């Protein structure tokens, strides 16, 4: 086989494979939209479930998921960003830093159901939060912590040292340098980490299974110690253990559509924020 044909063959293989990825994504979206489109309506997203979750809406599950996103970000974002800052800006190269980085990576590899069990043992039982938004948010935040730490690290490392030195040379302290120069410049990339974690938080079922999610709870939470319904778990319930699985099937697809839409909308908002900040601290 001559070189040219080989080259062409490789090129087309890569091209076809990358289009295959797009095709998979679109077929999943198409399949869900096709099956769930019929139930989508204002009532669907604004009403309580009715008739053993075969009719009505998924309002409490939407609210539940939004609470869990907000709650977990409240814990994971500051802790994750601060850990990332410590690792890249403060820790000296050495055993301790390597150990912290290794453990962060290991944390990322822990299966989500293990986080669920751990969250139940620690937050639900030991700390007596019960099945609650608080326990669920904390469990989810543990799960996404490594994502936020890693993206923060990479975002900070991407800031050229020349900017740090310029700041130090003007008599700025390390904290001032980080707060006024390094962090604003890396914020757009740090927000990418937040986007990724919002996607995971809203979609995971295992961590919330034993810590917050309610099978059926047709009322909204009034405090952080309340249980909530959540979209992924609701989807699981009406697809596998509802009162009438056949009848609630369109509801399941509809729930999936709403879940995807929420993640999409949050991503768009975060992306707009990232673009805005990127422009404000333009680096060329």
């Amino acid at each position: 086989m001559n070189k040219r044909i080989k080259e062409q063959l490789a090129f087309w293989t890569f091209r076809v494979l990358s289009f295959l990825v797009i095709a998979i994504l679109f077929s999943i979206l198409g399949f869900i939209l096709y099956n769930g489109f019929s139930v989508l309506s204002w009532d669907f997203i604004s009403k309580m479930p009715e008739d053993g979750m075969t009719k009505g809406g998924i309002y409490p599950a939407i609210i539940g998921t939004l609470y869990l996103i907000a709650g977990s970000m409240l814990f994971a974002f500051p802790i994750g960003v601060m850990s990332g800052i410590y690792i890249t800006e403060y820790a000296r190269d050495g055993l301790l830093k390597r150990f912290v980085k290794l453990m962060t990576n290991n944390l990322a590899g822990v299966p989500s159901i293990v986080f669920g069990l751990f969250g139940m043992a620690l937050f639900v039982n030991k700390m007596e939060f019960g099945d609650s938004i608080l326990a669920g948010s904390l469990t989810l935040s543990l799960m996404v912590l490594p994502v936020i730490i890693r993206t923060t690290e990479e975002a900070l490392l991407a800031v050229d040292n020349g900017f740090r030195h310029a700041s130090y040379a003007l008599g700025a302290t390390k904290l001032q340098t980080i707060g006024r120069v390094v962090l604003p410049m890396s914020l757009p990339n740090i927000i990418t980490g937040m986007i990724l974690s919002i996607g995971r938080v809203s979609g995971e079922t295992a961590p919330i299974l034993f810590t917050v999610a309610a099978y059926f709870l047709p009322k909204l939470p009034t405090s952080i110690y309340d249980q909530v319904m959540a979209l992924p778990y609701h989807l699981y319930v009406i697809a596998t253990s509802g009162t009438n699985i056949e009848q609630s099937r369109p509801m399941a697809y509809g729930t999936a559509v709403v879940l995807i839409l929420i993640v999409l909308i949050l991503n768009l908002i975060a992306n707009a924020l990232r673009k805005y900040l990127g422009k404000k601290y333009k680096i060329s």
Partner: protein
Amino acid sequence: MHKIESKDVHLYYGSFHALKGISIVIEKNTVTALIGPSGCGKSTYLRLFNRMNDLIDNVKIEGQCLIDGKNIYSREINIEDLRKRVGMVFQKPNPFPKTIFENVAYGLRVNGITHSTFIEERVERSLRQAALWEEVKDKLKKSAMELSGGQQQRLCIARALSIEPSVLLMDEPASALDPISTAKIEELIYELKSEYTIMIVTHNMQQAGRVSDYTGFFYLGELIEFDTTKKIFTNPTDTRTQNYITGRFG
């Protein structure tokens, strides 16, 4: 009392002996050029005086560095205060991705100055000193990144001047610039001499000849020769100095 003095300074990066017993005396309101081939230690020596070498792990410094008669490596010295008194301009123009105004105001803000009229006045004065005011006075709120390389470097000089240092360290400030911008920077150095004591590292022999009063030639971590620029460029004592400035190596 001399403005700047180093007494038998040795510096090690780990086991690498980068500066080998450097002793120099520099007087107030003079320009001193540090020349020598790459890796000779001249930039390392320059960075001793605002303690930028402290940022590198595994650096060991011996000997004494004095500014206004005080050892800047003694325990009582606060590094941030020292860096306020010793400004620095880097090789690559490195303005912050902020507005032109905020770039110059940065040094004032991090040093706790909040009075806005004072900051405005100081920003204008620094930009005038750096011969940039006329070019940017109508676009102070624009991003510094929109300026040309030469303008950015003068902005960095203005930024360094804003906190009124008495010493200005310049690490090849014109090496990334075109000839016209370079000429402007050199002119500026000449004018700034009346108020500041300037040390400049340069690879450009003509530049050293044009702007400096004194020149030090570094080679392999040693100070080979230190004298008036005139003497170094017309009648150097050491043959290595002569070979370097006539372009036989480096």
